[in-house]
């Protein structure tokens, strides 16, 4: 198991990370305070939070969205990501 894999697949090939809806985000920073993996970052000089390290995000974890009062965080579809992981695993076995 190398450092950056999830279920045997390189983490950077799995598109799992939050998306911030800036129309809803009120910059309360609850998600940033919560996330122990440093996924979010405050943008210098601006009242804006960005998803700076998407590949630090734990695949299938949606805990930050569950702290978000204004419901501004969304994630990709789990079944689609699972399907992709399965395909990538099969590809790795065949290769």
């Amino acid at each position, binding site marked *: *198991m190398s*450092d950056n894999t*999830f*279920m045997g697949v390189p983490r950077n090939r799995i598109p799992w990370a939050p998306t911030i809806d800036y129309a809803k985000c009120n910059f*309360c920073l*609850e998600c940033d305070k*919560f996330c*122990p993996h440093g996924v979010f970052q405050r943008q210098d000089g601006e009242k804006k939070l960005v998803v700076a390290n998407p590949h630090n995000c*734990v*695949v*299938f*974890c*949606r*805990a930050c*969205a*569950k*702290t*978000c*009062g*204004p*419901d501004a965080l969304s994630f990709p579809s*789990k*079944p689609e990501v*699972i399907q992709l992981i*399965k395909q990538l695993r099969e590809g790795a076995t065949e290769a």
Partner: protein
Amino acid sequence: MTEKYAVLPCNGLDKAFGPLSREVALAVLAARGGELVCPVLLHRAPARYAKATAQWPLLVIDGCATRCASRLANEQGLPIARKLQLSAAAKAAGTKVGESLTPGPAGLAFCQTIVADFLKEAPAAGESPAAADFPGVIEYEGFAHDKFLFRVPKSGYLFNENDCWVRVSGNRARVGISDYMQQSLSDIMFCTPPEIGAEIEQFGEAGTVESSKAVFEVVSPVSGKVVAVNMEAADQPELINEDPYERGWIAELELADFESDRGLLLDCSQYLELVKKKAAEFQK
């Protein structure tokens, strides 16, 4: 017998769901009796509500996912007996209550529905049906890291990389969270098991476990239909901290396709290695 409650709404003033939490609280109290707990005064002078919270079960009403009322109850060491989360309930029902801070007709109608559903539900009690037999004394492998000791069973369990376990017995399986995850969450104050009868995909949500730090989604290691839930752990969520692999199980599923699910899971020794890696990374 109808149950009285000490009712703690978030009463948040700057979002639409805050004033609605108060409306729900007042309606529950009108139907059942008990006492309204003001969050501001509870924070400032908890003794004011000591009698009510000792006498009656606590119903917490959070307006939004910030969960101020739940966190306040937790800070005050008050066990939460029942809980409503209005923004999540509205989303699930596809209801829009608007942005107005003064409750409008849509918001008030939504409150009525929430209250009617709440009053209909029988308080959780007794054994859940059809729990399969999962006997045996579990032996554990311990792994010390810093001041923590993380336990992983020596055999008989499978894990996913989201720190959830499954234990299979015939065509039934129990799922729960690992010792590593319960320690990461710290004191668990609320467990919401999945609905009995729900069909869950592998890696789908099998309930949630909540501490003051986070709401953790239980990622089901297997697919199947929920046939039983652990009411003991729902009533005493500290069981999940104390005994995460046995008495702290969360749901029991009738397996749908274990042979296929199995291929994506880790055995005990593989999971132990993963926990060591996670613990080491966390210290960085």
